[in-house]
Structure formats: C-alpha cells, structure tokens
C-alpha cells in the first residue's frame, strides 16, 4: 500500500541527489519516496522548489495544516490522470437539478446510515438513535432542494452530536457542535479529524479522473475542492468518529493532550501524534469486500467511492453510496 507520511516535528524537507530527506537539526531521515502517496505537514517545515519538483515527479500530494492542526491547503502536482470526457459529464450532473439532487441525497443517506451505525450498539444512545431515525424517515421523502436536504442533515447531525454526551467520558462533554473556532476538546477533535478526512479524500480524488472542484451537496463555490467535502460526509462518521470514540473511551487521549489559547482549543503535539497514529491504523484496517472478494482498506473504500462516481457519470452504473455492511 502507498503510504501516508505525517510530519509533526519542525524541520526541513530537502532533496539531496536522488533522495528526499527530512532533517531535524543534525538528525536526518531518508524518505522512501517510491512508496509515499501523500505527505501531511503539521510542523513548521521549510522546503524549496528543488524538493517540491522532486516530490511532484512522484505524483505525491502535500497537505499543510496550521498551528492548531486545521487544514490550510494542499500542493497537488500536475495531474496525470485527466479525462476531459469524465469532467464534462461530471459537470452535466451538477447542472441538471434532478441529477445533482440525486447525488447530494446519496451522500447524506450514507452519512446518516453511518451515524446510525455508530449509535446502534450503544444502549445509552438508544433514544437518540430513534430520534434520528424518525427525523430521517419523516424528512427524506420530502426533499425538493439542496437547502432542504442540508437542513435535514443539519438537524440529524445535531441529535447525533448530542448523543455523544451519553457515552463519552465526562471530561469530553459537548454543549453543541461548534466549528470555528472549536473551544472545547471534543469539538477540537471533530474538527481535527474532519480536516484529515478531507485531505485524505482529496488525495484519493486526485488519483482519479474526477474534478475535485465540481460538487453536488456542497456548493462548488464553497471551497476550492468541494467534491472532497461531499465524499467526506460518508467517511466522517465511519472513520473520524469511531477513532474519537476509541481514543476517548480507552483513555488514550485525556485533557492533558489539549492546549487552549484565547480563541481555540486544540490538540498539542503529543495529542496530535496519538490521534494520527490511530487514524492511520484505521485507514489501513481492511475489510473483506464481497464483490471484489479481496480485502479493502478504509482508504481503499474512499477510492472505490470515487470509482463509483466515475461509473455513474459515464452512464455505466447508477451510484449507490457505501453503507458499511460489516
């Protein structure tokens, strides 16, 4: 499997002859560039065009995060897998109201499915699960616009996040979900995890012929790579939330792993490391795929979602979003 590399320390990425190194003072680590697919940079890292050009030759994507661990931006090398045909058809699905709504609905449907899946085994959250089911069954058939769909999704997400208080340690209770800025630990975790899933999804989209800026649930104008936001909806509950539950319920993350300043609550360096490790091992966890009769990692499932979208756009197979069956 092509690797994701996370750099949490400060230092310099440097190309020396045909090797890429990460240097921290006198310490120097060679990076196995052939097997790297993406590099996530959390620390304060210097790099020059010589290093960047070298990294691009290998089609490696760089994702940058700010001091608080929130996504800042990506460096995507010139794309090799370009198909004008696919992009034109992708755009047609955006322009056609019905077609767009269909895809937007699919993303929400899968997201809701995975939220319910997360609550299903938890006795403490039963009332919330029922509330979500009610809301969903009531609302899903009366949607005629993207904004109605967004509204329904928002209501469900509220109930979902409230339920966290029932089964997470008390230190991590949440009044409400707040995005910018997160001022308590649980919100900080969700934001951090969502940043990660966004950039990982972008990396997968980048490997395919999809255009990351043409989206369906989110407005293409909302963010530069809004298709990544769309697909992330599916994987936020499936990957990010389960990682958070595990880390908190096993007390691997405690309050000491968070720092606060005037406006923000965020993971400190140690906290980020713990989170990234668990997150990465989740991405690499495999599940037997029934059709493929092969093991597919969680990361692989993100890629498969991209493939399914391409098949939908080229008129091959109607898109049916992932609903984890295991």
């Amino acid at each position: 499997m092509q690797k994701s590399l996370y750099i949490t320390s400060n230092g310099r990425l440097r190309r020396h002859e045909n090797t890429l190194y990460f240097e921290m003072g006198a310490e120097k680590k060679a990076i196995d560039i052939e097997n790297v697919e993406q590099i996530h940079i959390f620390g304060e890292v210097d790099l020059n065009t010589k290093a960047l050009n070298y990294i691009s030759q290998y089609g490696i994507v760089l994702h940058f995060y700010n001091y608080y661990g929130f996504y800042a931006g990506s460096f995507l090398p010139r794309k090799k897998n370009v198909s004008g045909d696919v992009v034109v058809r992708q755009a047609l699905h955006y322009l056609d109201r019905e077609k767009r709504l269909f895809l937007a609905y699919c993303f929400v449907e899968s997201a809701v499915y995975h939220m319910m899946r997360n609550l299903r085994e938890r006795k403490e959250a039963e009332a919330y699960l029922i509330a979500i089911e009610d809301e969903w069954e009531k609302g899903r058939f009366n949607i005629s616009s993207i904004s109605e769909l967004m509204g329904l999704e928002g209501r469900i997400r509220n109930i979902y996040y409230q339920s966290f208080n029932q089964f997470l340690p008390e230190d991590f209770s949440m009044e409400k979900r707040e995005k910018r800025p997160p001022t308590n630990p649980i919100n900080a975790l969700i934001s951090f995890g969502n940043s990660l899933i966004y950039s990982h999804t972008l990396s997968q989209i980048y490997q395919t012929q999809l255009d990351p800026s043409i989206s369906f649930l989110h407005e293409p104008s909302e963010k530069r790579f809004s298709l990544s936001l769309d697909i992330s909806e599916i994987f936020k509950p499936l990957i990010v939330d389960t990682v958070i539950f595990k880390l908190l319920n096993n007390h691997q993350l405690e309050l000491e792993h968070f720092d606060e300043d005037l406006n923000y609550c965020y993971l400190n360096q140690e906290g980020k490391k713990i989170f990234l490790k668990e997150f990465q091992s989740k991405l690499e966890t495999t599940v037997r795929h029934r059709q493929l009769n092969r093991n597919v990692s969680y990361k692989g499932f993100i890629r498969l979602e991209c493939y399914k979208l391409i098949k939908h756009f080229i008129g091959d197979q109607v898109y049916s979003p992932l609903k984890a069956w295991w």
Partner: protein
Amino acid sequence: MENSQEFQDLKFQAIKINYLYVCKRKLWLFSKNITFENKSDKVLLGRLLHEYSYPKEKSKEILIDNIITIDIMSDGSIREVKYSSKMKEADIMQVMYYLYYLKQKGVQKQGIINYPKEKRKEVLKLTPEYEEKVKQALKEIEEITTKSIPPPAQKQKICKSCAYFEFCWG
C-alpha cells in the same frame, strides 16, 4: 515514424487493438483516458518516448509493452518476444497492425515472434486475410469508442489481473 507524437499514436492504436481482443470495456475506458496505470507502466512509457525521441543512427529498437520489440532498421522486421508459445490472438493482431501500419507507409515487413525460452522463432506475414482483419478491427474500435457509454463489465479470467479490476467490480 519520425516524430514521437506519431509513435505515441501508433502505440496507443496498437494497445487498442490488443484491448479489442482482450476486453471491449477496457478499450472504451482507455479511449476516454480513464486509466489507472501503475508506476511501472508510467516509467515504461516515459522510457519508450525517450528512446524514440533520441533514435540511434542505424537501428531503432523500440520496446513496446515489454513484449514487442520493433527492430525496424537493422534487419527489416518486427520482433515480438514471448515467453510462451501460447499465441494469443490479441498479440498476433498487434503485430499484424504494425505490419499493416508500415505497409501504409510503403514499407513491407514481416513479423518475427521469438521464444527465447523454447529457442525458436515464428514468422508472421501480413496476408490479405489478416489485412482485412486489421481493417475490420480498426473499424470496430471506432464503433466501440464512439459509443457514449461503456460496454458493461463481464467477469472473465483476466479481470483478476486487470488494472481496472477494482474499478469494474468495486
């Protein structure tokens, strides 16, 4: 054959002929640039184009898909090196296409398939029947690749080792 663009077209056309016999869906996807080549494919293509761009003076040896060597200048033939004598129609047709292509350029050649393991070789000639078959194949490629949707996936033995496996079946 003097510029690399032409060579690239030649190569892509030959790949299409091969895919026509291997899997029509693969042909359609490839023709729309929906490809999932792995890194070694890319390296190979790069080397190919490089070699073609800087031809040696007398002989041009061009390695295609790791199995076919066109050795045009030295002894006037197209070679294919195969590791087993189980000749597949797809491979033969690919060579026939090169022969046909060269004939259009006014060059008559023959194809040689070498079996280094078995220490023997076979000579392929572009017969009128094969020429007809190549023309038919080119027509069929045109028909398939201008369709607006791809032929549906059909499970066959080669799917397992095909670069599109996860795309088609995932």
